[in-house]
């Protein structure tokens, strides 16, 4: 079997972070959890992850800033944005900045996996 793909989970809500990580493990991925924007950026740059699930509203550095810096660093890995529906402006901005996809909360864990597989080119 191939090495499991490492997925960065950047979500400040502990419940949601655990939920996503749990589902990722169940699906055979290796989750790497962080709970704020600074840690997310550091992990994206240093942890050799295959994809990022990125919440927008996070402490220290919001998801938009993290995305900007990831792309500015020349990293082209898939990024899936998590946000609430009432912030279409953010979603639009994130896609402009090179996010691959977005999901609005609340989301179904299965749906997130479907988006992730698509972003990773596994479907």
């Amino acid at each position, binding site marked *: 079997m191939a090495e499991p793909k490492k997925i960065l989970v950047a979500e400040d*809500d502990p*419940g*949601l972070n655990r*939920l*996503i990580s*749990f*589902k990722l493990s*169940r699906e055979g991925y290796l989750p790497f959890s962080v709970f704020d924007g600074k840690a997310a950026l550091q992990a994206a740059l240093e942890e050799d992850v295959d994809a990022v699930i990125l919440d927008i*509203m996070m402490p220290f550095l919001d998801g938009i800033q993290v995305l900007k810096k990831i792309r500015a660093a020349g990293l082209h890995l898939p990024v899936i944005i998590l946000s*609430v*529906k*009432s*912030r*279409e*402006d953010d*979603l*639009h901005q994130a*896609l*402009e900045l090179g996010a691959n*996809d*977005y999901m609005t*909360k*609340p*989301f*179904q*864990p*299965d*749906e997130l996996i*479907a*988006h992730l597989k*698509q972003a990773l080119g596994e*479907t």
Partner: protein
Amino acid sequence: MTKNNRNPGKQPFPRENRQEIPAEVSLLAQVLDQVSDGIYITDTERNIVFWNQAAEKITGYSQDEVLGKRCADDILKHTDMAGNELCGKELCPLHRAMQTGEPLQSPLTVKALQKDGRRLVMEVSITPLRSPSGDIIGGIEIFRDVSARAELEEKKARFFSSLSHELKTPLSNMQGYLDLLLAEDAGPLNDTQREFLTTAYREEQKLSSFIDELLEMGRFEGTEYSYRQEILDLSGLLSNLARGIKAAAAKKALRLETDLAPNLALFGDKDRLMQAFSNLVGNAVKYTEAGEVNLKASFDRHSDQVVVEVADTGPGIPEEEQEKIFEMFYRLDHHQGEGTAGTGVGLYIVKRVISNHDGRITIQSAPGAGSTFRVYLPGFIKHPEEGQS
């Protein structure tokens, strides 16, 4: 060169010289001076020939400082709400009104510079000025300061944005964990456990849906002044929208086809239009069980409108209900009680957003034959080389 010989025949009307101008004009000028909205009149070159007292009060510039100057270029430096300049000739609303001979259909919200350097939010109405023989001889701009209201709405929007986050996070937790349990990701369930969890899940979905719509309504109602009008890349916006909805369509084994003409642009509120189009496309995916959802966008040169079409192969809407679906809180009977809970504000919001952009929406549908929504909005083609904002 003085302003007078620059514009022979179209001399400014300073207050002290009004005895020299025809009596009826002088009378009118006195009236215009007394209204509380700022009013100025320009000649066809956009040089200011009249500036009322309210305009002085609102902007801080006296008539002596502005008569003969180019309106917004020199004085008010209008920008859209996102800060993009509007004074370029093609974008200047006053210039456009004089070119087309048509008044602006609805007031524009812009930012303008006061003499002391502060930026005001102004609501602006614009109309071309015609001579008795019908020739366009200038333009009129009427404006009022809506900064206080705009600020209040900005606060309201921020409040709803954070309220939304605060409500959605616990809901996302509840739904997600119930999902995991029901998918037996955390171990097998007996029948009773499954039944109870299914009930909890269904009720959570309803709650979530209601909260969604409540929030949508809350941030939508009474926020006309917080519309951020800016030059929008509609083609890009729609293609991003399609990208976001692709997975939801794929999950239901629906084909999502897009046919988007490039460089479509319009003056509008990005957030609101995204909300409207995402409601339309979202509905199409939500109510269609098999087949495809089509998103098309094109430009109609005859009417200078962008046309966005959302077509589905869903259940269709009977003719007698087609008007009602745009009413607030209206829901189609056959959708009651299914997994698609809602209060029926989605299409109401769509219609309001579209009409606030001087557009209109039509529907073509029949039971069993799918539905096609068409949105017509005043727009233009913006080639990338024509100055990036």
